[in-house]
């Protein structure tokens, strides 16, 4: 066996192993601790879990591309909030008054376009200035949040369109609308990353940017497209979620970047870029949601969820490092 093979196979399977462990643990612990009589591994419960994973999961798919690409996007939470406001607010705009329910697709498109544009703006700045994506998106995380407050100050923005709510709450083949969106996005992004030239180039750029430049890949526009994709997906996540809830607070989406990055890293994507998989990210998303739900099931509150997720993220890092220690004769630097 080649060195590193063990670590690699462990890594690629680790997230699913972890999910199984969670399922077993919460099922058993639930027998003793749970207040309800319902089993944890209930089919209904699992379906609900998939639906609840959607907001974070959809964004995480975009984050996978961006991180494989060697960048990061901290502004997704703010983009999420802006898109939500655009969606709900635009449905009340007088110019769309005559559209009836046709305002729905218009509002959706508008929100998605705004998301993609905000993402592209990040990407454009990264491309043209050469400033690190971490800093650029740290800045826009603040800036975009400022834009959120421009709409309605600290007041929530609300608009319920019952046709929209019906759509969002609909189920098809037993799966909720949000679940379908999550699965669809996962499939599309998987296709992009594994099968298309654009996806393969994303790996190449994240792995060795200089080599990619020398090979003639147009790295700048490529990165901008990826930022546009994550902006679009942040907006899509908002569109799916707020179609149902109908009301957005200006602080909504805060700390989403944290959850999303945690899911992506748990799923095995390399922080420095060049490696990672969409399927792994999907596992990471499920694992986190399972943890939230499972802890709730055994009676722990949200504070424990935060604590446990933070510690698990660090534990994964330690494990990864231990698996990659080479040998005693290694240079100690």
């Amino acid at each position: 066996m080649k060195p590193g093979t063990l670590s690699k196979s462990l890594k690629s399977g680790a997230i699913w192993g972890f999910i199984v462990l969670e399922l077993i643990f919460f099922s058993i612990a639930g027998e003793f601790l749970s207040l309800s009589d319902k089993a944890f591994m209930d089919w209904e419960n699992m379906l609900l879990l998939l639906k609840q994973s959607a907001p974070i999961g959809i964004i995480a798919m975009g984050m996978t591309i961006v991180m494989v690409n060697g960048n990061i996007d901290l502004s997704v939470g703010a983009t999420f909030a802006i898109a939500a406001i655009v969606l709900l607010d635009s449905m009340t705009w007088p110019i769309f008054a005559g559209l009836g329910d046709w305002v729905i697709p218009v509002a959706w498109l508008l929100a998605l376009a705004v998301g993609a544009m905000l993402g592209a703006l990040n990407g454009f700045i990264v491309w043209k200035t050469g400033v690190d994506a971490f800093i650029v998106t740290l800045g826009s995380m603040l800036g975009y949040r400022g834009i959120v407050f421009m709409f309605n100050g600290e007041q929530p923005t609300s608009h319920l369109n019952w046709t929209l709510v019906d759509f969002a709450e609909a189920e098809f083949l037993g799966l909720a609308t949000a679940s379908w969106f999550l699965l669809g996005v996962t499939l599309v992004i998987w296709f992009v990353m594994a099968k298309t030239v654009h996806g393969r180039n994303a790996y190449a750029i994240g792995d060795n940017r200089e080599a990619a430049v020398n090979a003639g890949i147009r790295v700048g526009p490529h990165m901008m497209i990826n930022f546009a994709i994550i902006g679009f997906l942040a907006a899509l996540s908002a569109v799916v979620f707020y179609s149902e809830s109908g009301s957005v607070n200006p602080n909504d989406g805060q700390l989403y970047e944290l959850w999303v990055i945690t899911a992506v890293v748990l799923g095995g994507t390399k922080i420095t870029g060049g490696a990672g998989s969409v399927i792994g990210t999907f596992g990471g998303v499920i694992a986190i949601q399972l943890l939230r739900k499972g802890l709730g099931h055994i009676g722990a509150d949200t504070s424990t969820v935060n604590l446990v997720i933070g510690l698990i993220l660090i534990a994964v890092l330690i494990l990864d490092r231990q698996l990659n220690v080479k040998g005693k004769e290694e240079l100690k630097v």
Partner: protein
Amino acid sequence: MSDPVLRLEGIVKTFPGVRALDGVSFSVMPGEVHALMGENGAGKSTLMKVLGGIHQPNEGHIFMGDEKAVMAGPLEAKAKGIVFIHQELSLAEELSVAENIYLGELPRKSFGRVDWSTLEENTNTILKKLNVGFDATTRVGDLSIANQQMVEIARALTVDAKAVIFDEPTASLTDAEKSVLFDVIADLKADGVGIIYISHRMEEIFKITDRISVLRDGQYQGTVNTRDSNEESVTQMMIGRKLDLSRNASHHELGDVALEVRGLSCGKLYSDISFEVRRGEVVGFYGLVGAGRTEIAETLFGLRDPSGGQILLNGEEVRISSPADAIARGISLVPEDRKGQGLVLGMNCRDNMTLPQVDDLKAGPFVAEGAEIAIFDQYRDRLDIRTPGWKQQVGNLSGGNQQKIVIGKWLSMHPNVLIVDEPTRGIDVGSKSEIHKLLRELAAQGYAVMVISSEMPEVLHVSDRTVAMYSGQIMRTFTSDEVTEDNLIQAISGIKSGQAA
């Protein structure tokens, strides 16, 4: 005679304060292997960047065939048929061999999909030509360095190349791999491709090239036919004057044994290493890259844990578990990678020089800056370091002056044992001979000095005794009376004395 495939005419490239290339003109004929030689810093890599479209020349022109060619960027150079095999590998390790070979030019199907079957087919055709033992779907990160180099070469073969530039291609290849490479070059040659071959290895140059062009300090020194030339004359063109490389055994009395190593081993890196270094003695370590010399130095400096054996300092057995440990015991290491290991480039000269002893230079709770400046001044004068002042960032100094800062940093620790790894790599001739002289002086002053070098004339010049290493083992230790170029080369090639035919 046909027209040259590539012709350079009066290429000048300046950077702020430096004339990196100063009127370089030569031409490469179709089917010619043209060596480009020069010391590090002579301008070879700048010239290659001009050819590759990464830099634009300030003056002069590039011609391809009859046409004037302007390389606006790497893509355009590639489109015009100029292909580079880089010394530093430029591969994406997570991707497959095929994806790397066609990086930037993956074949497409509908919906932007990669056309995997075409990709694999094309790749396997090329790989077959190169006769390598891996296939298109292998992950590049799983290949050996030599095989990764073959991937780079395969990449060059995908293009309809008019000129291929090899930059130190054999640095990490075994003999068998080298001969495959030379076959590839012969094939290219037969196809009428012009080849620029950059290497420091004289043996290869005289084996495979047709003509040799030489650069020195950015200036073109001329082109000679390989057949009509020899190593000595080429070296002289490269360095401009003769380096004094006469033998230099000590005439002073040697002192006690400062460092003794008994049966030292470190995993697969080296094993059963025994030698001693006396005060007043320079012991040279010679061998190929990867023979284990640097790793021994790193072990002595506490950067690697040995798996067996003993280290004795002044007759006393010691365990050295960290560089801080080594420094406390009077061991200094001038490391091989000046910029990566020796210096903090963003720091000033003074701070770099006093870094290992910054804990000891105290004025109350603070660092005694006066004492630091005094140390800096002392070694600036002693080593003739040319810098506007101690506030200068080390990154702005020339290679030679940077190396002197590193040497000064370790001399100022007054070590019992001074280990110097590749002391003159990539620095100008003047600084080189100054450093050689310094190493001899240090021995005369009673320092115990270990010099690791890959340049044979340097080892022969500075050493009292020479340790020849091959593949992690000491083959033989020569006194300066015994050593000759021939028996040293035999020893480092793994031929034990007496076995040689």
